[in-house]
């Protein structure tokens, strides 16, 4: 009885693992097919002969590396800025305590409900009016709209774990409020800060709609929109380029994810059991 359930569990997980990882394997194999093989040899998984044609094609003929660099810069800046604003707010919210805290966190969850497509129109107009269209500050501004509520929400649950007694003792010893925040609360929630920052980075890295509408020039494009224009800009779809780009983007993410998976497991709802 007991082993039956165990065998079933392994069976289910094996099927799930194949379904989850299979597409990645297919994409990797496809990216290694030659210039003509990718459209001729479609029924077989493995390439007849390993070729790096599409990787060379992608790096030489498109601005792929520029897009990657842009996305890294935008995502990092948006994470840093968002984390500063959110950790201050989250700390203050937890010190309010009780009903007020619950109400604040509910408000934050509610901001999540605003459709990005609704916000996109006002941002487009706002950013244009501020003269920030097609610029990094313009995009960062839009990114704050999802980074700040998201990070604040997660951080509230981490700051809640800081015992008040430690803070009170430190204040009796002469530390000011900002001092307590900097020297006591922040170091105590460091693991939570890292987890939150990772999520914030991933969200910004994956963002599509705002960068599509706010950034118009090719050289400032993010990976998502850059690759989208790659798909749309050609008369025939260049599957090879798309597969090579996918491998280059996804493999580092997966390595990174497997390194940090313990840390992010459950992070998203860590605060839900309040």
């Amino acid at each position, binding site marked *: 009885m007991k082993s039956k359930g165990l065998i079933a*569990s*392994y069976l*289910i*997980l094996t099927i*799930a*693992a194949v379904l*989850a990882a299979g*597409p*990645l394997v*297919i*994409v990797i194999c496809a990216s290694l097919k030659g210039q003509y093989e*990718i*459209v001729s040899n*479609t*029924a077989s*998984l493995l390439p007849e002969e390993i070729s790096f044609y599409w990787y060379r094609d992608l790096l030489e003929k498109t601005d792929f590396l520029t897009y990657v660099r842009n996305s890294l810069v935008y995502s990092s800046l948006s994470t840093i800025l968002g984390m500063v*604003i959110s950790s201050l*707010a989250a700390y*203050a*919210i937890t*010190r309010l305590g009780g009903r007020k805290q619950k109400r604040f966190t509910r408000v934050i*969850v*509610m*901001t999540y*409900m*605003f*459709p*990005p*497509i*609704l*916000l996109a*129109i*006002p*941002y487009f107009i*706002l950013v244009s009016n501020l003269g920030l269209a097609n610029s990094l500050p313009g995009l960062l501004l839009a990114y*704050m*709209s999802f980074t*700040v509520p998201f990070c604040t929400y997660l951080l509230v649950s981490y700051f809640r774990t800081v015992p008040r007694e430690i803070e009170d003792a430190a204040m009796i010893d002469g530390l000011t*409020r900002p001092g307590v*925040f900097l020297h006591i609360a922040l170091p105590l929630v460091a693991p939570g800060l890292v987890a939150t920052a990772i999520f914030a980075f991933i969200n910004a890295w*994956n963002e*599509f*709609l705002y960068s599509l*509408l706010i950034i118009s020039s090719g050289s400032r494009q993010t990976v*998502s929109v850059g*690759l989208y224009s790659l798909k749309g800009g050609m008369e025939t779809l260049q599957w090879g380029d*798309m*597969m090579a*780009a*996918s491998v280059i983007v*996804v493999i580092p993410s997966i390595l990174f*994810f*497997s390194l940090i*998976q313990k840390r992010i*497991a*459950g992070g*998203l*709802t860590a605060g*839900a*059991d309040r």
Partner: protein
Amino acid sequence: MIKKFVNRHMCGVFIAPAFLVTILLLAYPICISVFYSFTNKSLLGKPLKFTGFGNYQSVLSNPEFYQALWNTMVYTVISLSLQLMLGFILALALNRITRFKGLFRTLILIPWAFPMIIVTFTWSYLLNDLYGIVNGKLLQWGLIAQPIQFLADPRYAMVTVSLVNVWFGVPLFAVNILASLQTIPRDLYEAAMIDGASAWMRFRFITLPFVRVIAGLLIILRTIWIFNSFDLIFLMTGGGPGTATVTVPIFAYRMGWTLYSLGRSSAVTILLLLFLAGACFLYFRILDRWEREVSQ
């Protein structure tokens, strides 16, 4: 007394930047959208004119809007129910096994590491009628005579994009539900077994109450996210073929950026927001009750 004031003051200063962001980036856009929704605001820069409820009337009498609403519902229901069910099953299985736990968890997390643009590249390629391996294999094995137009046939397109969304979203459910499963004390199960509770009863009265608050929150967040999601469908089908996969966000995008009518587009998004607000309110009521039950 003074200390209390300083305390409160600091809270204000700390919250101020986030408050500004909220006002500028969330409250202001909502207000201005409401305003635009009553005007003929356009991308073409025509002089602004009030049109009253004209935009709403035109949207609400447009059959395409109702089709978009229906499509969004189909998309959300298929995606969410399968993500929740499969995520729960995988979490239970992961919680059960003893060996290769880390390996399985990493493999199952893979879809989550895909940015949406890559999800769509991958599946558009796999399901392509001419070059995709899915059709290639099915043809090779003689299971079909003609390639299946997964994304170009209006009968299949909606189901296809929903299933791709399921593929992408299951890991998030699995990992989060697993995390909450691991917080259940083992001795609860042992005590229940001594008392002769069946496997189903243990699941119903121990596992479910523990998991459902977190699952409930996940469902709220994911419902909103899927309902609002724009990129997956936009990137895979662009709403097509025809209007077969047009969801409300894509309908609003087409209004605003293809037809240049920002006023009408704003009306669509305000309706979308009202709809979500209603759903959210309902969820919070249910969640509050569950939380009270848990704490009792």
